[in-house]
């Protein structure tokens, strides 16, 4: 069970140690995020929750999905996709924040009716 195991064609084989280690880390981080959610951390609440989720996601991607040992191009593909998601969400958020006041004004008006 060494780390040097390779399947035919040179693909990397995950050792049980790493698999179980990652699994343990994921369980620990899940517990951590539940624990942290029970304490009011104020503004950084969301940041902490998303930070933990991102660490978990990276562990899954790098080890369970073999990205660490895989062709660099596959990583580029996924990071590229995330860049587009980021651009999409951030542009929409930016725009909505700009016109929110126009919605609020109308909401107040409608509630007054």
């Amino acid at each position, binding site marked *: 069970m060494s780390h040097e195991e390779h399947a035919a064609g040179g693909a990397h084989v995950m050792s049980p140690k790493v698999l179980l280690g990652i699994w343990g880390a994921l369980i620990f981080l899940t517990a951590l995020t539940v624990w942290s959610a029970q304490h009011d951390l104020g503004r950084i609440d969301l940041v902490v929750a998303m930070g933990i989720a991102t660490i978990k996601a990276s562990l899954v991607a790098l080890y369970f999905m073999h990205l660490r040992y895989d062709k660099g191009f596959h990583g580029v593909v996924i990071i590229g996709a995330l860049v587009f998601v980021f651009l999409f969400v951030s542009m929409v958020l930016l725009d909505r924040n700009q016109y929110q006041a*126009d919605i609020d*004004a109308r909401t107040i008006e409608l509630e007054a*009716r």
Partner: protein
Amino acid sequence: MMLTLAQAGEGTFWFPAQAAENAAKVDDLFYFVLYVSVFFFLLIMTILSIFVIRYRRREGVEPEKSPSHNTVLEIVWSVIPTALVVYMFYTGFTGYLEKRTPPTGAYEIGVTAQKWSWNFTYPNGHTTNVLHVPVGVETQMVMTSEDVIHSFFVPAFREKMDVLPGRYTKAWFTPTLVGTYDLFCAEYCGTAHSEMITKVVVHPQDGPDSFENWLREDSDFLTKLSPVEGGKKVYQLRGCGQCHSLDGTSGNGPSFKGAWGTERTLADGPKVVFDENYVRESILMPKAKVLAGYEPVMPTFQGRIKDEEITALIAFLKSLQQ
């Protein structure tokens, strides 16, 4: 009267008359882009034609060698268009900022769009279906929609802005030319989208046709018309017909035809007589007594309608009894 005024100003091959301050700026930029486009179009098509003729295929004549790329040429034809579009962007952007930033203290008119009519409310609470504005005054539209998305479009002002449900949008302009212009709905809104057309009347500053005179007289329509006619106008202006028909067909609300004096059942059981008190209460507190078979969807007119209007409306409803 005003509506019969001829369409003012002269249009060109491309545009209708310029009837607002910003229109000239928009047109100038349009013409700039147009000249640039025509220039490049002609340039490219001329070169293309020359090449196609000069280098047409001839028996036994092989194409001559020419470079497969030329850095100087490629930089030139990248940089020149870039410079031009940067100018277009900048001018368009500043023009847009002006268009989208209403000046403080502008004369404010409320716009409510609904399928498929426009409603304009002036500061004194008077409403019309045709937009009236004074010439030379910065005028701001504060717009919202009752149902789907519409768009406020006055070609002569070069102004267009969508009108959305659930929020306000704004448009502003300074009319420069007295006259009557088209006002379209430019965002597809269903069956009668293309009939959602009305007019903008730009009034002169002084004289009998001035905006102030018009507003005073038009707001006073109740004192001039008979109660029944006045009530009918209230019915039209306030958009009652959207839900309450005059021909007996049932909409979101009961038809007014022959309704007066009848006894109706309320949603929660008791009966009510369709009389002055009921009508008045229903206009001011529509959800208080909802007739059986209808949803409580009517908006309140509390604070939006004058007592005289309600009185006139009641006279009009009475006249529908037969």
